[in-house]
Every structure is written in structure tokens, then in C-alpha cells.
């Protein structure tokens, strides 16, 4: 016993010496850590509001406990399932339609021989990434305008009848997803293009010597070569499934499309900040965070198990 105590004492001394020697590291880390504490960790403690009948006058600590009342209130409201369905529906649609396209674009760009054409494709497809959400949504609205929008002008010119796209609830998800694909495919392709550039050139040399066709080289060399990148990005995307573009959906919403555009996060904003139902809104947010967290941890574990690639 005496020996271990001496050991921990000397260990402690060593650690202390290490910290003292690099005290400047800790001084540097202090402001960022304070930032995390104030703007991330303290709000986490605010989650306790979800279990209390919060009133501004009594403060978080002084308010009485409410148990699971607000969770029950959420799950028993008919809106709950619409919100969950919309949130998951839009994210899955985004994932399924949007995930493969950057890979396809990267594989195509990688096969190009002319540097100029290659550069132009990358530069042009990449550009929309820089357009702000507000501007992006207004572009969509201008293009789909019932009277002056380009699409409707085309439709009426061909003898069809103009459609009020933004007012059709059934079209909301597609408009959201495909405008996102237009904006982000080029940007997302970059990582894959980089991963492709890192593939061992001797593999291609060997394949070429054996007369393997280009298509087969893609299937047997390119795709296996970028699988780790694909998996990492897939994990990140799935982990964010419940965090889909709040800012954009919020801007695209109107009374006519609300049935299919109201998602958990827009609802949290309306209930929490506009109608000041703090506890109820925090409970919904808590539910959302937990699902997100569980998804990320699960997907990460699956990825580690089956492919030896994982985030941590």
C-alpha cells in the first residue's frame, strides 16, 4: 500500500511538473474553454427546464418539477407524428438523393484528361456553395414564381397551366432537396476528388497493362479506394439526420405548405421563442438531441464493426 501511495505521489509530481512547464498551453486554451462552457455546456444544463414547470420569475432552480409532463404533452399531440415524419422524411430524402451524386461527379471529373475542362467543371459546380441561404431561397422563389417564374413561363409557353409550386405541400420536399443538390454537389465532391487523387498510381498502370477498361478501373480501383472517405461522410451525414437545414426550411415555409414543411426545429423555434413555452420547447429539443446522438453513436459503431473506419 505504501508503495502505491509513493508511486501516485511521484506520478502526481511528474504531472504537475509537466503542466507547470507548459503552463502557456493552458493559458491559451482558457478562452476557448470558457467559450465552450458558456455557450455550450451551460445551455446543456438548461435542459433541466424540460422537466420543470419553468417560470421566468422563479428561475430554473426555483421552478417546480413537472416530471415528464411536457414529453407526454408532445407525444400525445397529433402534431408530433407529423413533425417526426417530416423531419425524418426530408432528411432521408436528402441523404438518399444527395449522397451518391457527389461521388458520381468526382468519378467523372477524375476521368477527365484536359486540365482546362476539369478546372471549369469543378469551379462552376462549386460556385453555388457560396450563395447564402437567404439568397438561395429567393432564387428558388423567383424561379418558381406562379406568374413571372422561369419554370412557369416555360410551362405556359408549352400550353400547360401555371403551377404555384411553393404553395403545393406535396412538392415542398422535392423543391427543398433538389435545390440543395444544385447548391452543394460540387462542394461535396471535393473530398472525393482529393481521395481519388491519393490512390496509388501503380494500380492504374498495372490495370492498363492488363487492358482493363476504364469502367472496370472505376469499379475495381476507384470505388474501393474512396470507400473510407464515403463511410466517414456517411457517418457524419447520418449523425446530422435530425439537424437538417433549419435556416432554409424556415425561409421556405408558408401557410400553404406547412403540412409538409414543419419540422421539429422550426416548431421548437415557434413554440419556444415566439410563444414563450420554454419548458415544452426544451423538451422537444431534448428529444431531438437524443435521437441525433443515438444515431451518430450507432452508425459509428456499425461502421467500426464492419469496415474498421470510424470517427472515433
Amino acid at each position: 500500500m505504501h508503495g502505491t501511495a509513493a508511486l501516485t505521489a511521484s506520478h502526481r509530481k511528474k504531472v504537475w511538473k509537466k503542466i507547470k512547464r507548459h503552463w502557456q498551453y493552458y493559458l491559451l486554451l482558457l478562452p476557448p474553454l470558457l467559450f465552450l462552457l458558456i455557450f455550450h455546456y451551460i445551455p446543456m444544463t438548461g435542459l433541466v427546464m424540460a422537466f420543470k414547470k419553468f417560470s421566468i420569475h422563479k428561475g430554473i432552480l426555483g421552478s417546480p418539477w413537472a416530471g415528464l409532463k411536457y414529453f407526454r404533452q408532445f407525444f400525445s399531440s397529433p402534431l408530433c407524428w407529423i413533425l417526426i415524419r417530416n423531419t425524418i422524411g426530408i432528411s432521408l430524402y436528402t441523404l438518399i438523393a444527395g449522397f451518391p451524386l457527389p461521388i458520381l461527379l468526382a468519378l467523372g471529373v477524375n476521368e477527365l484528361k484536359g486540365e482546362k475542362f476539369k478546372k471549369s467543371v469543378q469551379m462552376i459546380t462549386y460556385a453555388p456553395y457560396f450563395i447564402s441561404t437567404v439568397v438561395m431561397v429567393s432564387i428558388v422563389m423567383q424561379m418558381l414564381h406562379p406568374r413571372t417564374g422561369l419554370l412557369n413561363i416555360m410551362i405556359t409557353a408549352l400550353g400547360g397551366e401555371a403551377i404555384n409550386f411553393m404553395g403545393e405541400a406535396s412538392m415542398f420536399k422535392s423543391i427543398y432537396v433538389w435545390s440543395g443538390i444544385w447548391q452543394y454537389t460540387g462542394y461535396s465532391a471535393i473530398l472525393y476528388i482529393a481521395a481519388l487523387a491519393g490512390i496509388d498510381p501503380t494500380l492504374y498502370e498495372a490495370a492498363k497493362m492488363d487492358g482493363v477498361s476504364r469502367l472496370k478501373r472505376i469499379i475495381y480501383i476507384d470505388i474501393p479506394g474512396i470507400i473510407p472517405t464515403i463511410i466517414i461522410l456517411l457517418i457524419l451525414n447520418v449523425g446530422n439526420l435530425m439537424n437538417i437545414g433549419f435556416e432554409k426550411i424556415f425561409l421556405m415555409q408558408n401557410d400553404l405548405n406547412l403540412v409538409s414543411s414543419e419540422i421539429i426545429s422550426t416548431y421548437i423555434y415557434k413554440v419556444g421563442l415566439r410563444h414563450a413555452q420554454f419548458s415544452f420547447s426544451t423538451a422537444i429539443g431534448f428529444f431531438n438531441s437524443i435521437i441525433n446522438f443515438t444515431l451518430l453513436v450507432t452508425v459509428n459503431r456499425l461502421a467500426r464493426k464492419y469496415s474498421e473506419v470510424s470517427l472515433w
Partner: protein
Amino acid sequence: MPWNKQKNTIKESKGDRIFLTANILFLSIVMLVVLYPLIFIVSSSFSSTAAVTSGKVWLFPVEPSLAGYKAIFRNNQILYGYANSIFYTVVGTAVNIIFTIMAAFPLSRKDLYGKNLIMFLFTFTMLFSGGLVPFYMVVSKLGMLDKRIVLILPTALAVFQVIIARTFFQISIPEELAEAAEIDGCDDFGFLIKIVIPLSGPIIAVIGLMYAVNNWNTYFNALIFLKSTKLFPLQMVLRNILIQNSFDPNMVKDPVSMMETQGLRDLLKYALIVVASVPVLSIYPFVQKFFVKGMLIGSIKG
């Protein structure tokens, strides 16, 4: 990429030639799809009100006019928004870069005791959050509501950027360099300022650009935290005009007929889309190379 520089000794097979042609066709279509809406918007913004409302614009401007742009530059809200956004972007990005380096540099050092714990404290915030209402309450308790600082401090640091910068430091600053500096009597601050930062131009440019684009483009924090219109960043002004349609052309022009008012509103929207996007889009070709390189360095697993 050496495998792309084919020698004449190996000729492309017929199948490969078909494949290459199809590929070029595919990529050309992709380029057109991305480019066409952009061209259409720019052309519309330079056309006349009548041409825009009657749908005559297809590719090039029709009856060229600067009416939309003139209306924009006579609107004070837009000009204020521009000035505010420049302020928020410059100051915010500077704070972002300083905080990110302060976090990333120590975390990249091998001899930081407790590194794993600190790293965990950072990454955990990417996985889990208190949500909107608790965040709002903290900010309001700090007395930041409706002050300029509210668009700068609560977003001072993005953990994702810290990870990118840390990876860059780990890869590009060799351990021997730190040892040599220490022997020369350089402390950790001195090492960071005299050696690490001068060697980190590319990564500082990259994270700076990513932060700047974010700062320039966000509106949500302004929406929930700001009340005074004179503090609004450009995106908030744009939201009010472009999406909420709350722009009154009569404010900038003498009374005009209803038709013309509606037409000017549409024209102004196209011009505004162009004006709002030009600052970010125009820096991007210059930094694109940097950007791609930096992203690659940062995203290699560390």
C-alpha cells in the same frame, strides 16, 4: 496525375472512347444545369422591368437597363446592411481565427497533459447540445440582446475548424522544430507566434475563408437576437425584402403605376440577388486553390 498522361503506346479501346465521350457529355450537362439559373438571374437583373415581367428574358439581357441597381443604391436599409455585414464579417472572422488557433495549437502538441479530456470536451459539443431555448436564455442573461456583440461572441469558435487546424499543425509542424526552438530559449508563446503562425498561412487562409463565408451568410442569430433595424446584417435586410416581400418601391421612386411597382419589385429582387452574392463569389476564384488544398490537409485523419 501521371496515369492521365497517356503515352501513345497504349491506345484507348473503343469501349473506353465511348465511355470518355459519355463522361464529357454528362459533365457538360451538369455544368449547364448549374450555370443556367445563374446566367438567367444576372441577365434578368440587367433587363428592363417590362422584359422581366413579360418573360422575354431567356439568356441575354433584354432592353438593357440599370433600373434595379439604381433602386438598390437609393435604399438606406440595404446600404446599412452592407456596412453592418462588412463589420460583422471582419471583426467576427478575426475573433474566430484567434480563438481557433488558441485552441488548435495546444491540442496539436504531444506534451499537453490531459489532451484527450480537453479534446473530448470540444468534440462532445458537436454531438449534443442544449437546444435553442437554453442557448437563447444564456445569451439574454449575459445582457447581449440587441447589441452588436451578439453576432460575434456566441459564434466565436467552431469545433470543426479547430479539428482541421489541429490536424494541419500536427502534420506540418515537426516535433524537431519545437525541440530546436526550446533549445534556443523559445517558450511556447514565442514558438507559436514566431514559428507556427508564419508557417501556417494556408490553413489560416482556409479557416478564415470558411468563417468569413459563414459570417457573411447567416441570418438566424440576427433574427432571434437583434431588434434594432440599424444593427441588421445584410442577410436580414435581404430576408425582409426578398422573402417577406416587405419592400416598398415607392420609398425610392416617385409614385408610379401599380404595374410598374410590381415589375420594379421583381427586377429589384434579381438585382439584389446579384449584389448580395458578388462579394463572396468574387473572392472565391482567387482562393479556390488554397481552399481545396487546405480542406484536404485538414480532413486527413489525425
